[in-house]
């Protein structure tokens, strides 16, 4: 039987994961079997991937990459690593989608925004007080690389228009529409669907206020368009954008991206 232990394949006659732990990795605290952290014992099977890790020890770069990959379900990780995904707008939706996709290990993220971080963003956007005044593209890239140093990020500090959208996002298999205004949303979605026939768009529509979480859903609307949101609750005076529903919608969008990449 062949198994992979901390990244190296080996032949073994050992019967269970915990026997392997006790024999060679007894001072390791974390055991991950095929992407899932276990505390009880499992019988070893041919092809198993096992990682043993230590808590409170800062890993070197190679160990870090291996340990992060350990938590990814193996066949999903290959798809993520080879994908290029665009994020248009780095506000409440985009900054949070970017963080989730970097945690997923999406290999190349193309991020675009023309704005800088300001204090009123912090109620829902994935920034910190330290980021105030920075370009959102720079702040997001720093945060993403602090989450996952092993992904490539391409930054565009520019306002996306019908003239530049296809050039910026043309190589993406999926583009997330994460703008604020409905006419900008429509502009981006129309432009990508018209000019990039092999690109799928995931858009957000309706996530303001504190209405029922379960009204937010993911729907396939067109051949190459998914829309996430409640389709109703527009941001306006008296109904602002707040972290929980914006994050729920961002989670829908990020998972839609993952499902499209797995398809």
């Amino acid at each position, binding site marked *: 039987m062949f198994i992979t232990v901390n990244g190296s394949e080996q032949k073994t006659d050992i019967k269970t994961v915990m026997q392997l732990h006790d024999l060679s990795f007894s001072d390791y605290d974390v055991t991950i079997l095929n992407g899932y952290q276990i505390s009880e014992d499992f019988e070893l099977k041919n092809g198993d991937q096992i990682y043993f890790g230590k808590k409170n020890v800062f890993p070197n770069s190679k160990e870090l990459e291996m340990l992060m990959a350990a938590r990814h379900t193996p066949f999903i990780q290959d798809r993520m690593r080879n994908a290029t995904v665009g994020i248009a707008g780095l506000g409440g939706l985009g900054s949070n989608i970017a963080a989730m996709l970097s945690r997923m290990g999406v290999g190349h993220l193309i991020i675009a925004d023309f704005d800088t971080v300001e204090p009123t963003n912090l109620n829902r956007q994935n920034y910190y007080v330290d980021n105030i005044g920075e370009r959102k593209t720079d702040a997001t890239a720093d945060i993403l690389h602090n989450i996952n140093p092993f992904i490539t990020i391409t930054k565009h500090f520019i306002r996306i228009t019908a003239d530049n959208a296809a050039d910026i996002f043309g190589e993406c298999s999926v583009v997330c529409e994460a703008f604020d205004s409905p006419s900008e949303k*429509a502009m981006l979605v*129309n432009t990508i669907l018209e000019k990039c026939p092999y690109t799928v768009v995931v858009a957000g529509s*309706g996530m303001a206020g504190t209405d029922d979480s379960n009204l937010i859903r993911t729907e396939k609307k067109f051949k*190459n*368009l998914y*829309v996430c949101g409640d*389709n109703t609750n527009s941001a306006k005076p008296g109904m602002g954008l707040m972290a929980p529903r914006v994050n729920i919608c961002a989670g829908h969008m990020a998972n839609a991206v993952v499902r499209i990449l797995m398809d």
Partner: protein
Amino acid sequence: MKINGQNIQIVSGAKLADILFSNGYDKTKICVELNGNIIPKKNYESVIVKDEDSMEVVNFVGGG
């Protein structure tokens, strides 16, 4: 014709732009797929819809 799965009555020779307007859509905030094909905004005035057409309209609301 059908809009988002619902049957609506149209006059023969109607333009896509007129159908969108009469059904309350603001053309700056929508995307339109007609019989599975995305319709560029610049063609809304020239496309003539027919009884057998099936159209999907996505109407965006603000926030993101």
